């Protein structure tokens, strides 16, 4: 298929083998190096989308990142659908499948276009005024009728539905100088900084470096054509090992202290899976940042300025020079600025018909204007476009005096493309994000960088310095300055000065029917901004939010200044008085996947597993997530339910012996002459009198007096303690201790070392625990007398250095064997083997929970919630009576903490012994059910194999005084009666512990 608009002479795209692509089901040929937009334009296809609100036909406006109109969905198949891509940035590849958006049934015939008939009723903010329905209907009208319609109508492209199979990578990197933008300014900066030896990163979001040099066909630099200079500059940079050049890489956000986010498109042709990654996110920490991001051309504001075929002037020059594409056969140019004459001249030189240049300025002069006249191009000065016509493509424009509203004076000029230039807007996005100030530059009618943040510089067009010579000079100076090098001079020629006035919105013709658009994508027109101002929106921020101007996917790159100007005029203020809205990251939209990186599945959060975990997996254990840990939850046998497995594990443990992997417990080694004194500060308990070899259950409070952790403190030596914490609390407790040690008690001689992962912990619990482990233990006398309950001994287990603690969280005789992690599995298996003849069972966290509940042992975080004191838990005994101070002590004397009626920890026995109350269920005193005031809630509830019935633990207001009372638990429309009891159900005297 031929490409009727491809110019034989021009263009950097390779002729080679054609690429085939589809757009809206039609197959086209394109070339390597094309964008989707250039390839479509080569076929004369201008209509590529429909607008958001009015479904107006829209074409390609620009040639780059600023594109508001030409949004397409690209479908790479198998989960690779991406909506809302700019056709101007989509690189063509063979087999590309793209579709237009926001139209039904087809782009050319779109039923949604009826909206534009009602345009006057869809004025700015109209939806705030209507769709409410009658008051009597309440929310129904909005919820059931209007909102679904609004939602379906809104929303641009289709949503991706399948999981994205592609991969994304992230890297941090550092450099001396990050240079953003590789146009003339950026290249000159990179050359200067690179020559001076700086570690440089040069990035540009386009596939090719060069910026506007890529479409420069007349100017020369150092006597060479711009293109030749570009080639030489790129070669020179490539030869510098200290310069990293990254193409297809957008700098999307500037953060504190020169952290700049870059997003690189690596394998993204939106096609089948590549081995590598689709996009790569760089977090660059740069000592210096040079912004050389260029400038964006502004559209003109006139009725019908949105028709397909109406484009930015410089874009036409780019399509011609870079892709060899003529955007039309008879092109009309409208401008307030000299730069568009250059476009007209280039088009004419390439043989494209130029119908004339309509210049809003009364008497344009200057080199380029004269050159155009000299080339026979008709210049219509003091004239403006008054309206356009053409259904799916511009066919004709009406031209009239700028200030005139009379249709009679208008001239009609036929054209198939209308190029507009309303001046240039420096791309100050990143400068503004870096908290640089902006100042109004009346000469160019735009904001330019003022006071910059430390170590951020702007150079070239983004700094308001238009023109090649200026870009080179500023870029070079910036590059030299950041690297301590010296500046050099570039000689340019055929780089005529270009200026422009800024009257972008001439008087509206009486004959004009269309709206004059400001924000093309969000369909915001001049009258919308005027209406917003009329309705009291005086801040530009209100105007933005009320009209949504600048809030579309292009973030107003082409439209914000035009909208601002219209708003300022309506407010009767000067533009700088009205001010700008905030520039925010990202510069252009960034893929979620790139921001999420490789963190998915098991790499989303670390999956922590104990040394014994592989054994449990081999046994078919079910696991549960506890913080980052995977813990064996229970060990089902074939055909067993969870309840059955748990009951068996509990019964067997109490009957003979159970093994439990307690390795996840946090462990801290507290060492130093002041170790006991320090622990006395950190825990409620006394430790001074704890003899070496003994353990103590310890409660930790925060300074507000609430329980935050508990554990066992084992004294190994006068100056050495082995402290355990909850699994989830390990890191938090260590930090909490370090905080007090370093900042409140720095004089104490004590040091803390985390040993959580040093030790694998095998809990062996049950009446036969001693029998099972004795054969494996050396150097420790495990007898009742030699190693009583709550003691710790160092010795050997299976030949490995071990700490054996006689502690119990089940209420049975119990030992916790601590061995170095790497031996954990071996020791576990040895214990397991010993246990085999004694009906040992492995139990998981669920059985552990059940058994401790039978004993009424608290689980911090389950039975407590950060509002519970030791006394609330009935653990007042854990408070050292003679201690003057410990963390949290003072708070325990606060009025509400000593007040009567606090919630207290109790046991509950449901009337129906088979009914297991739900954890979290509320407790009321009357059978009232809903409406009754809650006295508390169930914190733990299980079926207890030991008792053969359900048990529960609860926090109940004044609970200890209610022992014996019957309270009620409303659950699922039922109300369950339950008797309040003491929270220890099994072996309340603790006889089983002392064996």
């Amino acid at each position, binding site marked *: 298929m031929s490409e009727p608009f491809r110019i034989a002479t021009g263009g950097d795209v390779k002729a080679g083998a054609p690429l085939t692509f589809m757009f809206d089901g039609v197959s086209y040929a394109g070339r390597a190096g094309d964008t989707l937009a250039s390839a479509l334009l080569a076929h004369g296809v201008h209509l590529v989308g429909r607008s958001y609100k009015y479904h107006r036909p829209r074409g390609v406006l620009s040639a780059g990142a600023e594109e508001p109109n030409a949004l397409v969905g690209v479908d790479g198949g198998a989960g690779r659908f991406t909506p809302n891509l700019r056709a101007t940035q989509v690189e063509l590849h063979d087999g590309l499948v793209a579709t237009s958006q926001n139209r039904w049934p087809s782009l050319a015939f779109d039923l949604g276009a009826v909206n534009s008939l009602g345009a006057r009723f869809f004025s700015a903010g109209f939806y705030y005024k209507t769709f409410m329905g009658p008051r009597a209907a309440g929310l129904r009208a909005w919820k059931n009728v209007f909102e679904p319609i609004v939602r379906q109508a809104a929303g641009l492209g289709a949503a991706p539905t399948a999981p994205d199979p592609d991969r994304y990578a*992230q890297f941090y990197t550092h450099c001396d100088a990050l240079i953003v933008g590789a146009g003339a300014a950026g290249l000159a900066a990179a050359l200067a900084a690179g020559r001076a030896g700086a570690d440089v990163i040069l990035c540009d979001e386009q596939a090719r470096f060069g910026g506007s040099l890529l479409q420069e066909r007349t100017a020369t630099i150092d006597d060479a054509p711009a293109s030749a200079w570009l080639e030489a500059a790129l070669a020179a940079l490539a030869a510098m090992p200290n310069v990293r050049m990254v193409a297809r890489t957008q700098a999307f956000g500037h953060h504190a202290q020169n952290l700049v986010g870059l997003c690189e498109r690596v394998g993204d042709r939106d096609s089948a899976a590549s081995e590598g990654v689709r996009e790569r996110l760089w977090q660059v920490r740069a000592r210096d940042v040079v912004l050389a991001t260029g400038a964006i051309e502004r559209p003109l504001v006139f009725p019908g300025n949105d028709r397909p075929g109406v484009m930015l002037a410089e874009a036409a020059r780019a399509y011609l020079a870079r892709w060899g594409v003529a955007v039309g056969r008879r092109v009309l140019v409208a401008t307030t600025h000299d730069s568009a004459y250059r476009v007209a001249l280039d088009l004419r030189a390439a043989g494209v018909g130029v119908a004339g240049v309509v210049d809003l300025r009364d008497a344009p002069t200057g080199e380029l204007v004269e050159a155009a006249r000299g080339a026979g191009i008709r210049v219509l000065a003091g004239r403006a476009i008054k309206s356009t016509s053409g259904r799916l493509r511009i066919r004709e424009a009406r031209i009239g005096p700028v200030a005139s509203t009379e249709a009679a004076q208008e001239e009609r000029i036929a054209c198939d493309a209308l190029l507009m230039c309303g001046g240039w807007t420096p791309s100050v996005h990143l400068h503004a994000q870096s908290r640089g100030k902006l100042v109004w530059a009346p000469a160019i009618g735009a904001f330019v960088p003022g006071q910059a943040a430390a170590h951020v510089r702007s150079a070239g067009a983004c700094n308001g310095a238009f023109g090649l010579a200026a870009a080179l000079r500023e870029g070079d100076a910036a590059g030299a300055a950041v690297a301590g090098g010296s500046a050099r001079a570039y000689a340019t020629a055929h780089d005529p000065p270009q200026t422009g006035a800024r009257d972008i919105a001439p008087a509206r013709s009486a004959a004009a029917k269309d709206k004059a658009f400001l924000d093309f994508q969000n369909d915001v027109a001049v009258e919308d901004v005027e209406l917003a101002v009329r309705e009291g929106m005086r801040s530009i921020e209100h105007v933005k939010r009320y009209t949504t101007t600048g809030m579309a996917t292009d973030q107003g790159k082409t439209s914000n200044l035009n909208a601002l100007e219209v708003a300022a005029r309506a407010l009767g203020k000067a533009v700088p008085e009205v001010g700008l809205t905030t520039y925010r990251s990202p510069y252009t939209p960034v893929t979620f996947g790139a921001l999420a990186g490789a963190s998915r599945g098991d*790499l989303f959060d670390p999956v922590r597993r*104990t040394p014994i975990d592989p054994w449990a997996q081999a046994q078919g254990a079910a696991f549960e997530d506890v913080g980052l840990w995977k813990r064996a939850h229970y060990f089902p046998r074939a055909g067993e339910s969870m309840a059955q497995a748990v009951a068996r594990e509990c019964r067997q443990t109490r009957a003979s012996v159970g093994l439990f992997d307690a390795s996840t417990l946090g462990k801290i080694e507290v060492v130093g002459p002041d170790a006991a004194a320090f622990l006395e500060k950190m825990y409620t308990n006394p430790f001074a009198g704890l003899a070496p070899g003994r353990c103590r259950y310890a409660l930790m409070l925060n300074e507000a007096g609430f329980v935050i952790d508990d554990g066992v403190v084992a004294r190994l030596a006068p100056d050495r303690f082995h402290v355990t914490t909850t699994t989830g609390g390990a890191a938090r407790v260590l930090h909490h201790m370090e905080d007090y040690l370093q900042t409140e008690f720095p004089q104490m001689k*004590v*040091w803390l*070392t985390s040993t*959580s992962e040093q030790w694998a912990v095998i809990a062996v619990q049950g009446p036969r625990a001693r029998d099972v482990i004795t054969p494996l233990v050396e150097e420790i006398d495990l007898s009742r007398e030699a190693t009583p309950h709550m003691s710790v001994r160092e010795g050997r287990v*299976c030949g490995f250095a071990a700490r054996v603690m006689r502690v119990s969280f089940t209420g049975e005789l119990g030992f916790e064997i601590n061995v170095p992690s790497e031996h954990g599995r071996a020791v576990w298996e040895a214990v397991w083997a010993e246990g085999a003849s004694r009906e040992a069972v492995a139990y998981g966290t669920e059985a552990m929970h059940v058994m401790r509940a039978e004993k009424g042992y608290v689980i911090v975080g389950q039975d407590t919630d950060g509002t519970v004191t030791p006394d609330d838990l009935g653990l007042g005994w854990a408070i050292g009576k003679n201690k003057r101070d410990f963390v949290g002590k003072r708070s325990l004397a606060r009025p509400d903490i000593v007040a009567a009626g606090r919630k207290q920890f109790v046991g509950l026995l449901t009337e129906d012994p088979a009914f297991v109350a739900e954890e979290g269920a509320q407790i009321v005193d009357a059978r009232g059910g809903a409406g009754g005031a809650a006295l508390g809630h169930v914190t733990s509830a299980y079926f207890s194999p030991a008792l053969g019935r359900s048990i529960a633990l609860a926090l109940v207001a004044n609970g200890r005084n209610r022992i014996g009372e019957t309270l009620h638990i409303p659950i699922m429309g039922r109300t369950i009666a339950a008797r309040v009891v003491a929270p220890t159900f099994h072996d309340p005297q603790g006889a089983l512990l002392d064996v």
Partner: protein
Amino acid sequence: MSEARAANPTPPTPAFPDDAEASLQSVGAAARFVLRGETPAARLAGEALGVAAPGRINRAEAAGLRAMLRLGPDEWLLVADGEAPAGLAGSLAQALDGTPHSLVDVSARQVGFVLDGRLAARLISAGCPLDLRDGAFPVGAATRTIFLKAEIVLWRRAAQTWRLEVWRSFAPYLIGHLAEARRGAADL
């Protein structure tokens, strides 16, 4: 019964696509201690170990397979590759006797890797935000730092050779991300 029944005392060797650009090797068993205290304690420990105690924070000194990393003002990590902790513990305790300090065996707490090759630093920077360029992180520098959601100790042994220490349960996460980064750096 005293002979060790340990079946598999070394951590698993990483599943990592080793190549000329980057290879990741487990260092195997090692004795490791955290020494806390003041500089005299470090000096004494260094003497016992045969390593000059690093005077500056975030520096390491090595002698053969033994090394001392100064991770904080009062914290040193002592590493002896291939050694068992028991023997070393005794000689260290002896040397330190009488000097206030805390010496804690963490041999089994963490595992060590050596990441080597042209891309080594790049792969580390997939998760570690530190400046790893020569000027900022020269050979001999060693520090505790962060790798995404894991804490690591990072020690530059040679221009392209890095030692990483990580708590054992975080090792699969670290290795997984390094392998993922290797893929993400394929064209770099």
